[in-house]
């Protein structure tokens, strides 16, 4: 069994074992098994990085076996510089989420842990699938555990959120399914994504395919104006669910643009690039402003996620290496930072059971250690140099300025909004005198919470100070992707 298969199936196997044998009466054993499983699943992804050959854009760690002969579908896996870090990120966040749910979840612990383990395996599958159907199966299957996570362990309005999440994202991906089948038929019976990259397609077909993929990925990212599901879902999802949703699931969409939309329909991508850029700028600027007026912390971070993902899509569609690499770096950085932001909110929510900014004030007085972490993550969220948040945004802005000065200027203004809403929230929640009795009774974070936040802080700091390991890996793949996109595929 190859490394990628192991990375996919190991967490799923642990999840199945948890489902089959876990009982709430043995919650302790269930938690430890989940932790062991998630750590082991993370460790098996490390050799992917150490064994990754730089300087080539070819797929690595390739596994290929026939899966459904009738439709020439293959179990075809591989990673390149674009997907490698996303695989590692997924496995890493899974460990954090298991730690985050440790004492918080008391009902159906085994199902909770299993859902996250299975979800993690499925998402790694999305990032490493090189066959259209395999990709689609993983992509869609992620909906099931997430639906259950939101619905079972979510907040008061969880039912609405779970349905909105499922149906909204399903609508987009069903159109993608049609596109996949169309490509299969046009390519003479192949579901191989890399074959599709080379397939000549006429302009109108490319446009239709581009928008079919767009419908799936834009909803997932989510891009303005189809982002409305995200705040509702984030608010109701349990902390772990929000963290995985923001950190990984949104990236499935952005990744799809790089793997499908741009290389399969390059002419349409160039033709409609400006359209995506405009939507991204709206997300960056307008949604940034919307975030500013939120009363609910989770909603604020959700809107901030939309704005940050706007940077990612903006970077992709300005078609220069800085922009695309910046977009990918931003995806990874946002993975760490948004997870940390949601987990921080979770820490407060577990104690006070409120997400309203107004319910807090002066938390720093009672939770100094936690406030330090929160400040650090807030800084990372507004893109302070030295944190992970800075690198990606800076690269995208540089790329954008090269592309067009005004677009660069507009996107740079988002940094100001980002700083404004993040720091204003920080001020209202953490600074000032102790606001009420709830805050007075707060106890500082325990060892488990410290560990989980420290791991994320370390990752954010490392990536901010020394982003070279991240950018080195993706350089060649990004440059080759752009070369590919620059060539016309018109027959």
């Amino acid at each position, binding site marked *: 069994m190859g490394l990628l298969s192991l990375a996919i199936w190991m967490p799923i196997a642990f999840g199945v074992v948890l*489902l089959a044998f876990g009982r709430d009466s043995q919650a302790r054993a269930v938690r430890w098994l989940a932790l062991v499983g998630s750590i082991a699943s993370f460790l098996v992804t490390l050799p992917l990085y150490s064994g990754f050959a730089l300087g080539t854009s070819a797929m690595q760690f390739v596994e290929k076996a*026939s*899966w*459904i*002969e*009738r*439709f020439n*579908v293959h179990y075809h896996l591989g990673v390149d510089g674009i997907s490698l870090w996303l695989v590692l990120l997924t496995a890493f966040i899974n460990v954090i989420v298991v730690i985050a749910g440790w004492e918080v979840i008391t009902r*159906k612990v085994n*199902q909770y842990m299993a859902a996250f383990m299975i979800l993690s395996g499925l998402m790694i599958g999305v990032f490493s699938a090189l066959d259209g*159907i395999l990709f*689609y*199966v993983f992509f*869609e*299957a992620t*909906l*099931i555990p997430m*639906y*259950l996570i939101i*619905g*079972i362990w979510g907040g008061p309005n*969880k*039912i609405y959120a*779970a*349905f909105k999440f*499922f*149906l909204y994202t*399903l*609508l987009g991906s*069903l*159109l993608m*399914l*049609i596109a996949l*089948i*169309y490509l*299969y*038929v046009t390519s003479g019976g192949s579901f191989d994504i890399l074959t599709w990259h080379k397939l000549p397609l006429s302009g109108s077909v490319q446009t239709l395919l581009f928008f079919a993929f767009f419908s799936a990925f834009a909803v997932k990212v989510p891009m303005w104006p189809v982002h409305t599901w995200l705040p509702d879902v984030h608010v109701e999802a349990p902390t772990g669910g929000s963290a995985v949703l923001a950190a990984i699931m949104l990236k499935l969409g952005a990744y799809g643009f790089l793997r499908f939309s741009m290389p399969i329909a390059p002419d349409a991508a160039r033709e409609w690039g400006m359209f995506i850029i405009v939507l991204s700028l709206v997300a960056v600027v307008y949604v940034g402003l919307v975030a500013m007026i939120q009363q609910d912390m989770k909603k604020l971070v959700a809107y901030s996620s939309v704005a940050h993902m706007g940077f990612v899509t903006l970077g992709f569609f300005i078609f220069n290496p800085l922009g695309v690499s910046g977009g990918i770096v931003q995806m990874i950085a946002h993975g760490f930072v948004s997870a940390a932001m949601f987990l921080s909110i979770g820490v407060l929510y577990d104690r006070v059971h409120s997400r309203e900014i107004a319910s807090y004030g002066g938390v720093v007085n009672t939770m100094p250690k936690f406030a330090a972490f929160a400040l650090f993550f807030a800084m990372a969220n507004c893109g302070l140099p030295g944190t992970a948040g800075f690198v990606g945004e800076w690269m995208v802005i540089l790329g954008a300025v090269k592309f067009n000065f005004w677009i660069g200027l507009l996107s740079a203004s988002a940094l100001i909004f980002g700083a404004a809403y993040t720091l204003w929230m920080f001020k209202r929640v953490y600074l000032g005198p102790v606001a009420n009795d709830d805050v007075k009774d707060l106890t500082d974070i325990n060892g488990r919470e410290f560990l989980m936040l420290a791991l994320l802080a370390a990752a954010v700091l490392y990536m901010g100070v020394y982003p070279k390991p991240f950018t080195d890996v993706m350089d060649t793949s990004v440059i080759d992707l752009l070369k590919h996109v620059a060539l016309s595929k018109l027959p």
Partner: protein
Amino acid sequence: MMDNSSWMTVYPEIVLLVMACVIALADLFVKSPKRNATYALTLLSLGGVAWLHAMYADAGQTLYGFGRLVVSDPMGHWLRCFATIAVMVTLVYSRPYAADRDMLRGGELFSLSMFALLGMSFMISGQNFIVIYLGLELLTLSSYALVALRRDHTQATEAAMKYFVLGAMASGFLLYGMSMMYGATGSLELSAVLKAISSGQVNHQVLVFGLVFIVSGLAFKIGAVPFHMWIPDVYQGAPTAATLLIGGAPKLAAFAIMIRLLVEGLLPLAFDWQQMLSVLAIGSLLIGNLAAIAQTNLKRMLAYSTIAQMGFVLLGFVAGVINGETTLAANAYSSAMFYMVGYVLTTLASFGVIMLLARQGFESEEITDLAGLNHRSPLYAGVMAICLFSLAGIPPMVGFYAKLAVLQSLIASGQGFYIGLAIFAVLMSLIGAFYYLRVVKVMYFDEPVTATTVAAHTDVRVVLSLNGLLVLVLGVVPGALMALCADAVVRMLAV
């Protein structure tokens, strides 16, 4: 003409018939209220029959018997093998349910099921209008009796009445259509009909006139809009055991008669019947999915969902012949077959759970009766959830690949109309996802209203778990079943 090979083609049916009679007689001497001996003997006989069919199918030969009255081909044997297994599984789920409802006073449940299966077998293997019709009548007459088995129950009696009247009308339609075909072509035998139509010597108007009746009759039987009215009432009114006997295995037989009549007999009229089936499919997808949303009764909801699912199966039939070319026929019809097999498998498990949850004097057929099932029994909630996701077409369940195969057959045609149909179908399955998800929501997100634990006999528990697992496993490795369907259909078309 009546050589030995003729008998070989119906050998499994002979075994089935003999055992059905033996069981009907032997049951007179069974005293146990749960009919253990009858039950064991039935399962044993059916197991043997299923094994025989699998052996025949595996041999891969196509033989005709009794002067082309029946055929023994891999497609027919596989369908009969699956139908037999489906009836076995149905009986396993039904026995405790029936015992609680005074339906096991005699062994009719078992012998009637076997006669129904015999009817299905001849529908599947028939090569002659009359044989197919007789098979259909044997199946439906047994089904009427099964629905009415709970004779002092008003709803069930009403359902039986409705089923009988409408079913008889549908049979009349079919028979009338067949007689038109006979009149036009001078033959009752499918291959001769095909030859006569291909020759172009036959009056096209008469053929299309007859075809309309045949298609209407078939649409009645599978429950496609606008001939679907009986489905919700009968599904809801019949005892769940009978519902499953109607809604499970016979669907495979219904698929078979569509293949036999429309493809093996009337393929030259494909242009006409493809149009009719397209209309039926659009109606079924639309009405089935929209009406299912409004249902609060789980059985009724599943009835509308069946209508919608049948719409998808019909889509598998519409893109077989493009501009007179049959190159895509195998692709299209095998996708419909795969869809049907996957659908029956899923239906078995979902009705199995409904029957399991029913207790003495309590039907558990409202959607709200499933509230909090995950707390009461994670296993059965899991089985039901897998089935619902499969029906909604979410991977990695078998239902997804079924939809994939059908959509692929539509898009492969390259015709704008069919690609439009594919897009319409996926949008409808989005609506479908809503009401399936609602049941998942009730099971997983709502609090249980009753703390009763779910108890099941060992046989039910094992079979139901395997059934649910199979829906998932066939989703992870669907290749073998797909290849089987494709191979069977290719061989059928090659003859």
